């Protein structure tokens, strides 16, 4: 495919893009809590938040006010510096990961003529960078749990480490097979590979399922929400947190959900290519929205697993599957 000539990416464009991502994703993350509560409620035949604003829409603002004005408590025996820094790690890594991901369509600001790219930083190992950054995000829960001098926190951070050691191999191996087919680590190449309308999920159904499972573990969503499962470990690593510090964990989690949605959409579900009569920007938003909805849907439907079950699943079932998938992909690529 002949690449269209794009305007030059300037520093101003990148800065505008970064601010845009920060603002929009934070807002979506906040709005995501509302959507989550609503959808979970509907699936349990409840109404969800209704009182603040029409159909509870302003609940978001009420929650925000509450989070910002709540007292920021640092426990007496906690390691204060690390305790204070940990939530920022979660939020920051989640947003840094979004820097290498195509989030919104590119556009040019009229009058000042600044081109705002689709990806803030189009490094050619984008997919690895995103996964690595999300892996670095585990330091948030890990340090938070260890710094707060609380036994539930310690258990939460131990579970963080266990979960990380379980899913990280699956994430890498599952995405390796599509990488082999495309021959590149750049999101743009993944998108261009699927312009003919055949989505990667058709070629790599196993890798897609494995990636979705690992993605759930990566974002601590329900079948694998071991870190802060309140029935077992109160709130895990977030036990002692209050106010905006807790809110930063929350924003980080939702930003990660969006990141996983973007990766799934671009790598497996055809990216931002036009589909039938729908333009590409609508398609990618629809795909991300569906993966977001799917995460909530699963939370309403499925029970969660024990840490040892997650480890068993990842190392004894998923990892062999992923390796076999990679080998078969390699053999087929060699023969064809």
């Amino acid at each position, binding site marked *: 495919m002949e690449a269209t000539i794009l305007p030059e990416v300037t520093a101003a464009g990148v800065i505008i893009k970064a601010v845009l991502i920060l603002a929009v994703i934070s807002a979506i993350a906040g709005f995501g809590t509302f959507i989550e509560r609503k*959808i979970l*409620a*509907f*699936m*349990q*035949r*409840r*109404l969800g938040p*209704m009182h603040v604003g029409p159909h509870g829409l302003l609940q978001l603002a009420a929650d925000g006010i509450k989070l910002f004005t709540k007292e920021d408590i640092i426990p007496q025996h906690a390691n204060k510096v690390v305790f204070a820094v940990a939530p920022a790690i979660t939020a920051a890594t989640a947003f840094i990961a979004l820097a290498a991901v195509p989030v919104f369509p590119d556009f040019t600001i009229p009058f000042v003529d600044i081109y705002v790219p689709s990806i803030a930083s189009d490094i050619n190992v984008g997919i690895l960078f995103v996964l690595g950054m999300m892996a670095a995000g585990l330091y948030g829960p890990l340090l938070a749990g260890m710094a707060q001098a609380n036994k539930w926190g310690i258990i939460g951070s131990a579970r963080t480490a266990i979960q990380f050691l379980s899913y990280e191999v699956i994430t890498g191996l599952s995405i390796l097979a599509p990488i082999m087919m495309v021959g590149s680590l750049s999101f743009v190449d993944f998108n261009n590979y699927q312009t003919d309308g055949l989505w990667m999920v058709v070629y790599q159904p196993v890798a897609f399922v494995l990636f979705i499972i690992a993605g759930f573990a990566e974002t601590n969503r329900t079948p694998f929400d071991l870190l802060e499962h309140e029935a077992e470990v109160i709130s895990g690593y977030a036990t002692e947190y209050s106010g905006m510090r807790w809110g930063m964990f929350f924003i980080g989690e939702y930003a990660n959900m969006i990141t996983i949605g973007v990766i799934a959409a671009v790598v497996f579900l055809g990216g931002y290519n036009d589909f039938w009569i729908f333009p590409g920007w609508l398609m990618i938003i629809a795909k991300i929205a569906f993966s977001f909805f799917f995460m909530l*849907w*699963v939370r*309403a*439907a*499925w029970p969660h697993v024990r840490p040892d079950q997650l480890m068993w699943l990842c190392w004894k*079932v998923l990892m062999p599957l992923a390796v076999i998938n990679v080998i078969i992909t390699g053999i087929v690529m060699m023969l064809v």
Partner: protein
Amino acid sequence: MSLEQFKNRNVGTQNYKKLDLEHSPTCGWCQFKQVVSRTFKPELFVGLWVTLREMGNALFRGKMHTTQYPFEKLPISPRYRAIHDMLRLLESGHYRCIGCGLCEKICISNCISMDTRYDENQRKEVSEYTINFGRCIFCGYCAEVCPELAIVHGPRYETASEQRASFSLFEDMLTPIDKLNLQQEYDGFGAISSNADENIKKTPLAY
């Protein structure tokens, strides 16, 4: 259904259905087979379908369960003993109470106090009637003993108030004269609630 069936305490012979749960696998190959069969059995998707179906039911078929409580209230059983109501005669609008004092006498927590006098027609008139709701135990004796069905238990169960006196005066409990047409007659002891038909459903054990 005979009484014998309830007297039978022998669990083993009753009409229990045993689920044929498979034994947990012992050998490695059996475990592998179990994993494979569970993986390809679409049980997880059944779960997803159920939640999606319920969402559709709730959103589009009006099967939402939520009652938005302060704005909506479920109908309450007529047997419920909440704050007392003083009823009026439907024809004349005069209060029904004849000042006989039976409720005051029977009240076991001594919370009803009343005073009567003769009015200009030499009829008995209630000059003062209060119920101390700090003491009332809502036993319902006053309503049961009243010969005129004048004092009954009403459906007002939200009894949180800034002052104890808020409910207790005769005028507070009396049906307002302009709401006389809305006055509910007490259905009597043993009456069933107005939405009893909707509430009839199979117990969960039956299915």
